[in-house]
């Protein structure tokens, strides 16, 4: 029974298969040579988490990048060509990121902006490198540099820079030596913990307390009591906005008087509101983008951002805005080049942006300093000295 059924069927299918395979083997995409159309719109992909836990980050990034592109389009685009945006959702998942990278490569995008998630960007990097698509990311992990892709650029300093600048300020300039650490064990907190400890170690400073909490912890009395016993001059916080706010609030309730220090999250309104304005007074913040009122450029940006989105501008939007400006400048300078030529053009761009002066080196980092600010009467102002 089996034999009788199988034979004609198998023979037929085999014949069909041979027909197909003979037509084209082995499988693979025929190289189209990059399309070669130099007249239509220039396609730029914006990939970020548009859904999932990190979607607010993705939304800010999108608004910043879109603002820059809209401004260029309003001025007539690049050499008369409009810029077309394709928005992709990476869902904050590296695997989805690789799908998105393939999609971007197969749909003829010349460059990509994003993502804000370092791990997703690292997963995408080999594919984008292979497809020769330059990528300006908002991630800031040192791991991005370790990928060593000539097509990968950062639109801000690496996280090492934040903590290096902060350590320089508090240890070298203010002369504080007894410093306590409280960080969470999530990816952000862990990164902050490691790079700040490293920055302190190069200065011969060992933290007097090193408290690690979990990412969903809400009560920090045990960790903070321990810190209080050590009586530090400064407490470094490595946690996201809300958790940082809670830590500061509970520390003040426990009678801890020492000022706090931290990176970007500690400069946000969410942090300030959670902790209470009085409690955060004197917090030292290392951030590439202090506020919307630092200089004329940031005031203009903040106003345009407000008009376009109806929201107050913040750091992530500013970073993405800078990244988009750099990419568009490179496209203009290279006469809308693609691939390696465009990557070289990005590397050559000298841009005076919201975050500072960009000048790229071989690792893909364009900016090497952050600003130090202090929260004074509820506002983040540049620190003296």
């Amino acid at each position, binding site marked *: 029974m089996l034999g009788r059924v199988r034979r004609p069927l198998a023979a037929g299918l085999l014949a069909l298969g041979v027909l197909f395979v003979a037509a084209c083997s082995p499988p693979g995409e025929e190289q189209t040579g990059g399309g070669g159309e130099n007249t239509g719109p220039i396609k730029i992909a914006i990939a970020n988490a548009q859904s999932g836990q990190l979607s607010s980050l993705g939304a800010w990034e999108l608004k910043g990048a879109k603002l820059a592109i809209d401004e260029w389009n309003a001025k007539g685009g690049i050499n008369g060509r409009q810029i077309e945006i394709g928005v992709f*959702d990476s869902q904050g998942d590296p695997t989805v990121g690789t799908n998105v990278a393939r999609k971007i490569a197969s749909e003829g995008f010349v460059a990509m902006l994003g993502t804000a998630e370092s791990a997703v960007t690292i997963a995408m990097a080999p594919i984008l490198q292979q497809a020769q698509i330059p990528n300006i990311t908002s991630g800031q*992990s040192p791991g991005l540099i370790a990928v060593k892709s000539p097509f990968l650029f950062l639109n801000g300093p690496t996280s090492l820079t934040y903590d290096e600048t902060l350590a320089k300020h508090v240890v070298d300039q203010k002369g504080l030596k007894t410093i306590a650490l409280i960080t969470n064990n999530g990816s952000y907190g862990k*990164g902050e913990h490691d790079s700040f400890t490293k920055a302190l170690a190069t200065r011969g400073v060992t933290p007097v307390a090193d408290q690690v909490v979990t990412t969903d912890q809400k009560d920090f009395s045990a960790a903070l009591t321990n810190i209080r016993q050590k009586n530090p001059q400064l407490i470094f916080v490595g946690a996201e906005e809300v958790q940082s706010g809670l830590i500061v609030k509970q520390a003040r309730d426990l009678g801890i008087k020492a000022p706090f220090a931290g990176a970007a999250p500690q400069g946000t309104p969410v942090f300030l509101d959670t902790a209470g304005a009085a409690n955060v007074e004197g917090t030292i913040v290392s951030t590439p983008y202090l506020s919307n009122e630092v200089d004329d450029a940031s005031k203009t940006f903040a106003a345009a951002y407000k008009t376009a989105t109806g929201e107050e501008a913040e750091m992530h939007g500013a970073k993405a805005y800078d990244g988009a400006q750099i990419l568009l400048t490179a496209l203009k300078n290279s006469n809308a080049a693609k691939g390696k030529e465009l990557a070289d053009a990005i590397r050559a761009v000298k841009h005076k942006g919201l975050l500072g002066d960009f000048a790229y080196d071989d690792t893909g980092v364009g900016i090497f300093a952050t600003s130090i600010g202090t929260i004074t009467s509820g506002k983040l102002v540049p620190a003296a000295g």
Partner: protein
Amino acid sequence: MRIRLGAIAALAVAAWLLPYQLNSYAMHVVNVMLLYAILSVGLGLCMGIAGQINLAQVAFFGVGAYATAVLTVKEGMGFWTAAVLALLATAAIGLVVGTPALRVQSHYLGIVTLGLALAFTNWVTNSTLAGGAEGIPGIPRPTLPGVDLSSDYLFYYVELALFAVTLVFGLFVVHTSLGRRMRAMRDDSLAAGAVGVEVPALRMTAFLLASVYGGVAGVLYSGLIGYVAPETFSIANMFLLLAMVIIGGRQSLVGCVIGAISLALVREVLIDYPTYAQVAYGTVVVLTVVFAPTGLAGLPVRLRGLLHRRTTATASSGLTPFRPYDPAGTTGEPDAPMLAVRDLSMHFRGVKALTEVSLEVPAGQIRGIVGPNGSGKTTLFNVVSGLYRPTAGRVVLDGRDVTAARPFALAHAGIARTFQNLRLFSALSVRDNVLVALDPTRASGTWRYLVLPVGVWRRDRALRREADALLDRFGLAAFADNLPTALPYGIQRRVEIARAMAARPRLLLLDEPAAGLNGDEVRQLCDIVRSIRDFGVTVVVIEHNMGMVMSLCDHVTVFAHGAIIADGPPAEVAISPEVIEAYLGESMAMPAPVASEVQG
């Protein structure tokens, strides 16, 4: 058969030719999809087939991927060596994660495994070995002589081959002894133990299988993506996997594959509409759970069920008469006790269900156990068959002390039982119900699945023939392919006796076998029990139907308040004043009416 073979061949050819039709993006999506399909099959085996809630599948996936990454990037091993070691590591982790299943089940197990999965992501985020939050980039692509696996197109064939192997192996497991025992354990772990299924070992096997599937997918993942980071193994992805298995239909491995492919496709389609993605995605999950609880794979059956709703009700007409066993003659010494219970006590906190009960059942006897409700009869059965560990006393089976042995060990030693409230494996066919008990395969023989799959297959075919012969003897041949729940009560009772006899017991415990049977069925039951005894099996029967007890039993033991109040031949016991008092109360202690009731 012909259609199925044709469909499989067509699918195989389509899968082989697929890369020729796809661009590099679609190819990559398909590659990722296949990984999820392998993961779902593993999860389906553990959750759908073995009934072990496993929310750590994504961690198994992660262990496989991370182990490959660490061994290749940090230790500089070759990809395939690393792959083998990674699989072993995942299997070891699988056994660790499975250990709680020995003590807790259902949602508690879910919580425990979820906790272990969270612990894994937490650990990799904070471990320097695993590269922390940045993960481990630069995992080399595997190499095969003559094939360039750096191309997604050719890597597809590696994945396809492994997918086919894992799926076929999974289906093989499901449709042979191991899978059958797992499904029995899922439907009713108590009854499974009572027919000889080694429940603890099988639970571990389920987790072992799930982890190996996770490991295979993890190894392929690290080869395909070349990078591992904690986010990939998040709880969100565990939910996605769970949704794949539930949408596809968890009791069918093919369903799991369909679920994985369709959800992966939905996810890919929605990438262009990020605003609606979450809502649409959630809607699909909710709709499936509400309108197709058995998943996509269960849809054809449900539709067929709707169409043929009337015809299934008439299935009871196929029952044929029981064909008696050939009498075995007198075996061994007739008066040696087959079962001896000595000073047995069973207390549940304050409740004394049995107090210092002693009784002996000689080989070849039909012993009746009677007594009012709550007198400790079923408790005695539960102690003898190993469900309860007695507070004090001993149980001796044919001269061997078996006190507090595990139920499956007692089943192997020759005790079989039925349950007061039927405990058939509801999602297994009548034949499979019998096969589970008939199957002498032990958990320690599972290695045969790797080394001798043909032998396993042959044994299974032989067992199937044996099962059909047994069903034929019990007149149940017409219902071999029915689910027991679809059958009339009387037939279910008979299936349970057939299942108990399939285990070839020396001692058969029947707990109220006549409950719910009509007069005709009770007479047939008596014939069956007598034939079983003549075949050489000692029978102990708990029964309330006094007429049946009087005519069937050689000897009757009467229980009241957890103690024996009378013991002797039926006629003697029936007129004992203690018995009458226990049954009817003090004021009614008059022998005459009881005697007439007994005769009727």
